[in-house]
């Protein structure tokens, strides 16, 4: 994890070069902020918490306008009321891993819904247990070739499709792509 180069890229997105961890000569890490230029959202019921999440004062490569996270109560049953899309800042012909930052103040949704688009038009439906992670990266998908975007909704992920449970908080915060 030791960095050999770190810089803040335009459009409120960070590019960080990593060292030789995992035996890889070098890797690139892209952190996509909720609220940033590589993020879009739709739907209703959005809530936010200031100075919380990966990008906060003293942490993260993001400017102060992005020092917050968002959350939404989950949609019970099928479908979703709120959606977000993280468009990957770099889409290249290598395999990549995607992760979601899960904080401590919200994110008790154990069947969070993510959809990773890779290899031009293939998709991988992922379910992440946000309740099990605190101030850490949780894996969304591994070894996906040419990852181009990650969608995240307040509905139930594929592993719990159309679950009737309601009242859970779905966290939307930073998404990391490691290539």
């Amino acid at each position, binding site marked *: 994890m030791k960095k050999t180069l770190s810089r803040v890229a335009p459009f409120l997105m960070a590019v960080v070069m990593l060292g030789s961890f995992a035996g890889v000569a070098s890797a690139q890490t892209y952190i996509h902020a909720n609220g940033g230029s590589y993020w879009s959202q739709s739907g209703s019921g959005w809530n936010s918490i200031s100075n919380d999440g990966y990008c906060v004062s003293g942490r993260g490569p993001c400017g102060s306008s992005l020092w917050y996270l968002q959350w939404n109560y989950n949609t019970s049953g099928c479908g979703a009321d709120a959606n977000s899309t993280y468009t990957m800042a770099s889409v290249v012909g290598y395999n990549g891993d995607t992760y979601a930052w899960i904080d401590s103040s919200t994110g008790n949704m154990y069947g969070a819904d993510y959809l990773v688009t890779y290899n031009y038009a293939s998709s991988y439906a992922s379910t992440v247990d946000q309740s099990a992670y605190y*101030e850490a990266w949780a*894996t969304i998908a591994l070894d996906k070739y040419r990852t181009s975007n990650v969608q995240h909704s307040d509905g139930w992920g594929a592993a719990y499709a159309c679950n009737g449970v309601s009242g859970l908080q779905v966290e939307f915060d930073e998404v990391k792509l490691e290539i």
Partner: protein
Amino acid sequence: MYIVNPTNNTVVQFGPGPGSKISFERNGSKSLPQSELKAMAEEYLLKHVADFGSVKANFSFRQMSKPGSVSYAFRWEAKSKPQGEDVTPFVQIVLSPVGEVMSFNDVRSLYSN
């Protein structure tokens, strides 16, 4: 899912992987007393983190819970952050309200070399 640092074969993280469906007890009303959960967390870490005694003595401790007390986190963080890093090195275990191990992190080895 386990994430292992291959340079020293230590577990950096384990927890529910993508697509998993693990039936942890998440009913906060069934929660054990927090003191009991903390004792369980420390007992686990003493068994599985070789230098946990040193971690406990030198790192800052924080205890957290999610809305609805669906889980509890017991986290020991270094008191300083290596230059250029965003996340402070930490050791953490997350337990369900009845003490099931939901996830574990010991990211310290990622900060060396």
